[in-house]
């Protein structure tokens, strides 16, 4: 009776156990040889440079719409001139890291799950092992390292273009002088905000890539399985980004402010 009651829990618990095992293998692989340097560089390029265009567009439009919406609200309190501070603080602390992470989860997380999933169902991962290569070192470590390193860089770029986007809207639509906007943008940002905006994407990059790798390496069932893995990766990573962001924000506020 009790066993039957817990049956639906078995699969999620197994998945968490396997995920933690993957993280353990990743950690062990980081401190021992061999390290596949060329694969790391390749992934830095694919994840970083490959995501640049979409991150630029996302950051710019987010900053612009934030300025438009906030302008209306700030008008009610007669502080339209504070628009720069609001845009910069919102972008750097929250919107930049989270939206960039969500975009990367959609683009990179799904890509990792699809690629590793395809390799699983076509026996390429088994072939790697048969040829003497540890798939964790060859496939997982480069992807997690690259995503962890590149997400902060992409986030800084998204923050920057977002604030610039806000400046464009402020000066053209809200008629706030550019110098007023930038003064407010700089005054509204504190060093702790910048740290928060840099720490979050490091953790989120790790979460996205590790989930993509875990889901990809657990793929079964041919091309249908690859499709399922890709969807699962995006859904799980997106929810995880929002949940981890909340927990991280709470932790960082408690520690830093």
């Amino acid at each position, binding site marked *: 009776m009790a066993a039957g009651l817990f049956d639906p829990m078995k699969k999620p618990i197994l998945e968490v156990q396997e995920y933690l095992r993957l993280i353990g293998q990743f950690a062990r692989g980081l401190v021992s040889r*061999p390290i596949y340097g060329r694969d790391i560089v390749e992934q830095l390029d694919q994840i970083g440079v490959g995501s640049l265009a979409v991150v630029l567009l996302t950051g710019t439009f987010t900053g612009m719409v934030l300025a438009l919406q906030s302008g209306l609200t700030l008008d009610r309190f007669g502080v339209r001139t504070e628009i720069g501070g609001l845009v910069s603080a919102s972008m750097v602390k929250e919107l930049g890291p989270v939206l960039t992470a969500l975009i990367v989860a959609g683009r990179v997380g799904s890509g990792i799950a699809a690629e590793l999933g395809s390799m699983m169902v076509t026996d390429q991962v088994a*072939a*790697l092992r*048969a*040829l003497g290569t540890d798939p964790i070192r*060859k496939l997982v470590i480069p992807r997690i390292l690259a995503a962890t390193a590149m997400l902060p860089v992409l986030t800084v770029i998204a923050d920057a273009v977002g604030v610039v986007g806000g400046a464009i809207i402020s000066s053209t639509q809200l008629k706030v002088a550019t110098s007023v906007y930038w003064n407010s943008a700089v005054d509204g940002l504190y060093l702790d905000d910048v740290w928060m905006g840099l720490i979050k994407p490091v953790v989120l990059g790790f979460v996205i890539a590790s989930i993509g790798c875990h889901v990809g390496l657990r793929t079964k069932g041919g091309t249908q399985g690859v499709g399922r893995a890709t969807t699962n990766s995006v859904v799980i990573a997106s929810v995880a980004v929002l949940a981890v962001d909340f927990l991280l924000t709470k932790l960082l506020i408690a520690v830093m402010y």
Partner: protein
Amino acid sequence: MPVDALIEAQAPPGTLAAGTPAVLFEDVSLAFDDKVVLEHLSFSLMPGTMKVFLGASGAGKSTILRLILGLLRPDAGAIWVHGRRVDQLTEAELMPVRAELGMVFQEGALFDSLTVRENTGYRLFEETRQPIADVDVRVQEVLGFVGLRDYAERMPSDISGGQRRRVAIARALASRPRTLLYDEPTTGLDPITALTVDAEIIKLRDLEHVSSIIVTHQLRDAFYVATHRAVTGEDGTVAIRPAPAGDPDDTRFIMLKDGGIGFEGTAAELRATSDAYLRAFLS
């Protein structure tokens, strides 16, 4: 061979005591959940010989190859590969054992982001410190062996199914393995292309003296491999000829049935069997 003798024979890679099997299964059992795949399976493969595994789908043929490579672990029993007990080794300890094994996967399992050259020399490029020039020489050599020297810079998606299978053989062969494992090497190929793959298998057995295990459904190919020999002519060309009468037959067929061995014998013995199940399988 008793286990004690094998433990004594646990020699560094590259050496193998006389009389030590290349592969030895002792009472191996494996089940996936409630489904028993192998039950008390025992067999041995002596160096330079060939075993052909036949059986219905799901009989555990491919599982045997994965157990040999250490990709799966048995629930019970012992598996020895080149004198080392692989079922007790860690992933890192398995690497030198795998370096002496070559595996040709079903459908080839070529890395689709790498060229034929990179696929073929993968282990040498990635897992050894050999100079790239030396690796390229070896890659050209094995691609020449399977007749694909001109395809080195092609991607796997740009070559045919039969060529992919031959690249997989070249990849398995590149690091000079002592034992080759073939998982359905000719399944899905047309008869003519399948014969070219069969010819490579025969050449490796007869000219390179590589021990091999073939898992297949293709009886025609299995019998062809068992009953033909590779011979080198005076001008150095290699030809595949029917085995002369009285030629020692080192190829043994094993039919898996109900998790164990339903039949073990030569091609002639298999053809002459009166067992109803085997007759149904052969018909």
